[in-house]
């Protein structure tokens, strides 16, 4: 399998130029394979979100390099990084984070519209299909604020997929959902991973969830503590 993302000696220090800088990540080396389904676990404060934000180019590392395929993301300008995020990444955050002023459908289409391409019939039917996949076919034109937590989270999942991203990054996507819904959301992500060959990197504090993924990376005190890949079964 080809590598889609590699992290080389990533260090992150918050408040570098202040009196008490906090070093959060220490020489993190990681490699992610195309179409893989990965989870990151670890104690609160261990640096999981920090790592994911750096992977998602929402934040820059203090030192070290990130390569997307062959491209060194550190060499891109903020403008180019924004384009990269829009084109190649999908985000699912813990707190839904839909735009409350827009409908479910409009939220799903937002990353596409940000890419400044004309809305075509193809893309609207794709958005509808994605909403169907997440089970919200009947809620397309409802305002985001009028949806339940689980529904909003599922809209966010549909939204993360609209631009056919190579990688979807999720930070505790089920953190505030009940266990039944959590189960459903993971099944959904798994299905999408199989169907669209999208790479997933998911932070979770739920070990039972983590065990269902192909690979579990445990972060401890800003370092990779365990990295277990399941034997691929045919």
């Amino acid at each position, binding site marked *: 399998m080809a590598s889609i993302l590699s992290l080389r000696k990533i260090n992150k220090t918050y408040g570098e130029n202040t009196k008490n800088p906090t070093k959060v990540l220490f020489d993190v080396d990681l490699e992610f394979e195309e179409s893989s389904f990965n989870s990151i676990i670890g104690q609160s404060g261990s640096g999981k*979100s920090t790592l994911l934000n750096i992977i998602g180019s929402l934040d820059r590392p203090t030192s070290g390099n990130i390569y997307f395929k062959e491209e060194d993301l550190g060499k891109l300008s903020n403008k180019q990084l924004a*384009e990269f*995020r*829009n084109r190649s990444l999908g985000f699912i*955050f813990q707190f839904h*984070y*839909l735009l409350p*002023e827009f409908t479910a459908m409009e939220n799903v289409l937002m990353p596409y519209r*940000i890419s400044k391409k004309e809305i075509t019939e193809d893309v609207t039917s794709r958005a509808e299909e994605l909403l169907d996949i997440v089970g919200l076919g009947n809620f397309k034109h409802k305002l985001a604020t009028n949806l339940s937590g689980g529904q909003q989270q599922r809209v966010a999942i549909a939204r993360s997929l609209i631009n056919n991203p190579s990688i979807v990054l999720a930070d505790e996507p089920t953190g505030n959902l009940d266990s039944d819904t959590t189960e459903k959301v993971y099944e959904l992500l798994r299905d999408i991973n199989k169907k669209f060959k999208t790479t997933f990197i998911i932070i979770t504090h739920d070990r039972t969830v983590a065990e269902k993924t192909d690979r579990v990376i445990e972060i401890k005190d800003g370092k990779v503590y365990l990295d277990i890949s399941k034997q691929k079964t045919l």
Partner: protein
Amino acid sequence: MKLAFQIAKRFLLASKRQTIVIILGIAVGVSVQVFIGALIAGLQDSLVNTTIGSRSQITINIEDEYITGYNELIDTIKDSSENIRVITPTITTSGSLIKNSNSEIIVLRGFEFDSADNIYKLTEKLTEGSTLPDEDNEILLGINLKENLGIDIGDTVEFDSAIYDNRDFKVVGFFDFEVNEINNTWTISTINTVQAIIEQGDVVGNIEMQLNEVFDAEDFTKTEIAKNIDNKYNISTWISENESLLSGLQGQSISSLMIQIFVIVSVVLGISSTLAITVLQKSKQLGILKAMGIQDSDASLIFLFEGLLLGIFGAIVGLLLGIGLLYAFTTFSGTDIPISFDLGFLALSAGIAIAASMIAALIPALKSRKLSVIEVIRNG
């Protein structure tokens, strides 16, 4: 661009009450501007009008001499400037009028009534029963002379010039200029009448003019005329004779400008502080948009469009409000305060409000650039 506009629209619609408050804020500013502006312009117009509305604004003469060939001169002057609204020849001499034992020193002015009426508005100033002279030796008198001489319409008075022969004039009416100096001394007749007294042939004393743009008299029109006529002619303008009036008018213009500036400043402060709050309110949305890869410039555009939309609607509501205020003022105040209503000025007020709103939106637009995505995500 389109996306930024639509997001701006949606943001404004989503918080309707706040949007309405901002629009009303801008509208009040615009309406005050429209109202005060129309009032000041109206006062200015009426001041200019009462002061120079019924007199010559540019006068041409030759020192100690009469003007011969004045019809050609008038044609030349007319052709030299577009700004001339009326031009008329006048001739003036002095003497006294005698009736019974009464005698008054007067100024006898010879007019060509067709054109002179456009300057002096004589027909509006005639008293009951008066007519304009249409034969030689018929005269109109200042209203005060009626009492002072004890005469009435139809009477004959004697004109005694110290230099020339005496004449008998027939009184055909009186005028009231509402200025004592004129009402006490002016006697108006035809040009022929005065020409006959001074026995110099077909001559006049002055060429008098009124202008379309009165403030151009000194710097533009006078120069244009001077280029085309012999330099034996004196050209004097109302401006060079009325410096104190002018500085008064300037003072009004400056105070009008100050009001405009204060209104603009308050509009800018109001909008930028409210929009600055919107950036905070919408920081979550901005964070999501940025995570999804919106360009900083597009994110800033959202706020500029918000400013533009608020400005446009504020200006429209403000204009309506201002016009309504003016209407109510003229209809119900019962005063005679003049109002000058100018479409150009309305457009300017609206334009200034819109521009001010955009400028005000610049601050939040720039602020939105600094917003960091991780801060938003971290703080939920």
